[in-house]
Structure formats: structure tokens, C-alpha cells
């Protein structure tokens, strides 16, 4: 007599390995980004060099997109009550394509190798189409009245648009398609960070911030209208960019920045009202993420008024590494132990307490390394020092290797509990 009017196919619930495979390979791309920076610290001097593009995509596609795709396979059933049909084989294929595609893309961009770019287009295009098709079927079964499933749909569409623009750009670079490179690039960046990653972050935050950080719910007008307003503003901004209306595009970019700032400020305010007496690692990671996001937005604005080359690079570091990577790592530290506990319990295995699956101390220490890596990256970009760039590379590699080690602790505890 379950009465929510939902179609919930329990048999199709994904195995722990479905999201886990994405979560365990993603940090390796962070390690690769760190090693690349260690080998070539001059990459922080300009955002458009082949090496800088490779570095950005190791983080954005290899780390961020991998975690996002993995999380969506599990978020839909747990928070939205919607199963992804045939999740396990689809996740296996999507993971293989995404991992090989991210590596190929970074190699193609960094080494200027057109064949690797074409391979990346095929791999990423196919795996993402598989993924989008799967979650679209899952989302169709989710209750439409909730803000999270609706915003997840918008985020999935945003990610799709960003990827389509990115793949087109890759073909412009690899095969010289006669399309306007700068316009496509501008649209790709806007849709990738706000239309895809930003919307997905917001849609998940509506649920996971109150749930795991014990805060009040986000204000209803924000969850009701923020994603719609952001999507609408992105569409109009894209029209202005395509029409070459620089003034309108700048005004709309300011609106988008204001919307992103509104989300970050609201999240910080909610965290101040948390019922938790001492902030845990995830709360700290979110605070760092939201503060970095705000600082990154300020750098974006500064870049519009000042021609100094450092502003866009500082903005990129603050938004990608300081904003998204902080929040994603904080979420991984909640999601992975919780899923391990959930799968053990659902399978009738006596599960250890989640704090035993992953204690807070190694999490806090790893997040200190993450903060040190961020500060060193910013100092290296601002000063142009190769020595600081190399140090930042080492710290980034250490940070992501440590993240992987912490996640592996959960996997080992999960296996021990199963074997007991």
C-alpha cells in the first residue's frame, strides 16, 4: 500500500559498483593534472595554450564529469525515487567511454594531435548519449512536482549542450570545420560551468545540503525559480553571443554571475544555521567551495574591466579547483560511505557505522592538502613563478591521490563487512 504514485522498480536498483567505478577513476585524472603541471608549470600563464586546455579538461571532464555521471546513476533512485533502467551495463559502457574519452581529449588538446581529438569526440559522444538516454528514462519516472528531478533534467540538458559544443570545437580544431571558433568557445565555457556543472550542483544541493549538513531547507522561491531563471538567462545570453550583440551579452553575463552568486551566498547562509555543533569535513569543503566560487565570480567581473591576463586564470582556478572540486570532494565523502552502508543494509549485512567506514580525521587532513593546493595554484598564477607552479602541481597530485586513498578505505571496510 505504498501511496506516492511512483513507479519504483526495486530489482533495477544499481549495485554499489555502478557509481563507485566513476568515483575511483575520477581522482586519477586529478593526479594526472597535478603531474602535468609539475612537468610544465608555465601552463598557468595563459588559458588558451594547448597544455592549459589539457589541464582544464583533465579536471573538468576527467574528474568533475566522471563524478557527476557516476553520482547521477545513484542519486536518481536514492533522492528522486527514479530507477535508471539497465544501470549496470550502461554504467560500465559509459564509464569506459568517458574515461578513455577524457584521456584522449586531454592528450589531443595537449599534444595537438587531431586523431586523439577525433577519437575523443567518438568516445565522449557515444558514452554521453548512452548516459543521457538512460537517465532521461529514469527521470521520466520521477515525480515531476519536486524541484530536484526537474532541475536534474535541466542540468542533464545543459551538460548535453555543453558537450555538443565541446565536441564541435574539437572537430573545428581536429578537422578545420569552418565554424566561428571564438563564439563556440564562449558558448561552450558558459554552458559547461553554469548550464551543466552549476545546475547539477544546485539541483543536488537542494537535497544534500539540508540532508547531510543539517541545515534548514533552501528558500522555496530559490528552488522553484533559480534553475529556470539560470537556464532562461543562458539561452538569451547565447542568442546575444550568436548575434554578436556584445553589450547585451555582457549585461546577461552579469545577470548569470549574479544568479551564481545568489546560490553561493544562500548556501553559505544556510550553513551558518546548521544544527551541527562542529562543522565536519564536508561542511568545510562546501564553505571553501562557495567562498571560492564567489571570489572566482569577482575575478570574472574584474576581467571585464581590466585587461590583465591573470584575472581569467585566477577565475578558472577559483571556480574549477576552489569551487567545484571542493564541493565534489565534500560530497564524495558523504555519498560513498552512505552508499556503502546502504548497500550492506539492503543486502541484509550488518553494516558498520558510517563514521567507522570513513572517520573524519583523514578527510579533514586531505581537505587541508586541497586548500594548500588551491592557495599555491593561486599564488603561482598571480606571480608567474615556475617554482610555485611546480609546487602547486605536486600538491594537486598529492591531494587527489589522498582523496583516492580515503575512498579506498571505505571500499576496504565495505568488503570486510561483506566477508564477515
Amino acid at each position: 500500500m505504498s501511496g506516492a504514485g511512483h513507479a519504483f522498480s526495486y530489482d533495477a536498483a544499481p549495485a554499489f559498483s555502478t557509481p563507485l567505478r566513476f568515483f575511483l577513476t575520477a581522482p586519477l585524472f586529478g593526479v594526472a593534472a597535478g603531474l602535468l603541471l609539475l612537468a610544465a608549470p608555465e601552463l598557468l600563464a595563459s588559458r588558451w595554450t594547448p597544455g592549459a586546455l589539457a589541464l582544464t579538461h583533465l579536471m573538468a571532464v576527467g574528474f568533475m564529469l566522471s563524478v557527476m555521471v557516476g553520482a547521477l546513476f545513484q542519486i536518481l533512485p536514492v533522492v528522486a525515487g527514479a530507477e535508471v533502467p539497465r544501470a549496470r551495463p550502461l554504467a560500465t559502457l559509459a564509464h569506459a567511454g568517458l574515461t578513455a574519452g577524457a584521456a584522449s581529449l586531454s592528450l589531443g588538446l595537449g599534444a595537438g594531435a587531431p586523431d586523439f581529438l577525433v577519437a575523443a569526440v567518438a568516445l565522449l559522444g557515444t558514452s554521453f548519449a548512452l548516459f543521457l538516454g538512460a537517465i532521461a528514462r529514469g527521470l521520466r519516472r520521477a515525480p515531476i512536482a519536486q524541484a530536484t528531478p526537474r532541475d536534474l533534467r535541466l542540468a542533464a540538458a545543459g551538460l548535453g549542450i555543453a558537450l555538443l559544443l565541446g565536441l564541435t570545437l574539437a572537430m573545428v580544431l581536429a578537422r578545420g570545420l569552418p565554424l566561428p571558433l571564438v563564439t563556440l568557445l564562449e558558448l561552450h565555457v558558459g554552458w559547461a560551468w553554469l548550464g551543466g556543472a552549476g545546475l547539477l550542483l544546485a539541483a543536488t544541493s537542494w537535497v544534500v545540503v539540508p540532508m547531510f549538513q543539517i541545515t534548514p531547507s533552501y528558500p522555496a522561491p530559490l528552488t522553484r525559480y533559480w534553475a529556470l531563471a539560470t537556464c532562461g538567462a543562458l539561452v538569451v545570453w547565447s542568442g546575444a553571443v550568436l548575434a554578436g550583440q556584445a553589450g547585451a551579452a555582457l549585461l546577461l553575463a552579469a545577470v548569470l554571475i549574479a544568479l551564481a552568486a545568489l546560490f553561493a551566498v544562500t548556501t553559505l547562509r544556510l550553513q551558518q544555521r546548521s544544527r551541527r555543533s562542529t562543522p565536519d569535513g564536508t561542511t568545510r569543503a562546501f564553505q571553501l567551495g562557495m567562498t571560492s566560487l564567489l571570489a572566482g565570480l569577482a575575478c570574472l567581473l574584474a576581467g571585464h574591466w581590466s585587461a590583465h591576463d591573470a584575472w581569467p586564470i585566477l577565475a578558472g582556478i577559483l571556480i574549477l579547483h576552489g569551487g567545484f572540486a571542493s564541493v565534489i570532494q565534500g560530497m564524495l565523502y558523504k555519498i560513498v560511505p552512505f552508499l556503502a552502508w546502504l548497500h550492506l543494509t539492503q543486502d541484509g549485512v550488518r553494516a558498520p557505522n558510517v563514521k567507522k567506514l570513513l572517520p573524519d580525521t583523514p578527510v579533514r587532513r586531505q581537505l587541508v592538502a586541497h586548500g594548500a593546493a588551491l592557495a599555491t595554484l593561486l599564488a603561482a598564477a598571480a606571480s608567474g613563478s615556475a617554482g610555485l607552479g611546480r609546487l602547486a602541481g605536486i600538491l594537486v597530485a598529492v591531494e587527489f591521490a589522498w582523496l583516492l586513498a580515503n575512498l579506498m578505505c571505505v571500499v576496504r571496510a565495505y568488503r570486510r563487512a561483506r566477508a564477515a
Partner: protein
Amino acid sequence: MSVTIDGRGLEPPKPFELAMEALADLKAGEELMLLLDRMPWPLFRILDREGYRHSNRIRDDGVVEIRIVAP
């Protein structure tokens, strides 16, 4: 006998753990009422597998009420 567990404001999986402990003590035909902040989709899987009857509703104040009857 009817037992009520208020799991609002608790970090996951604490409400889930409290519910599982209470279910273990429930005798046939007895009821457990859960008050939660959100729909516990994963719990439904266990309830269905173990043969518990359950119903849910979202109150006007947003609180999710789950009524569970032991088999």
C-alpha cells in the same frame, strides 16, 4: 501497539538505523510511524522484500509520514 520515530533533522543514515531497530522489535500487526524530512526510497525496498505493508503521505507542513505495519 504503535511506535513513532521522529527522524527529522538527523543526518542519514541515522533515521534509517532507528527505523531498522524499531522494525526488529515490532510484533505481527503492530505499527511503526516514521516522521521524516524526505521520502525514504531505499527503505521501501527493504520493507517490500520483508513483507511489511506501508503507506506514505506528505503533510501540508512538508513532513513525510510513513506508516508501516509488521507482517
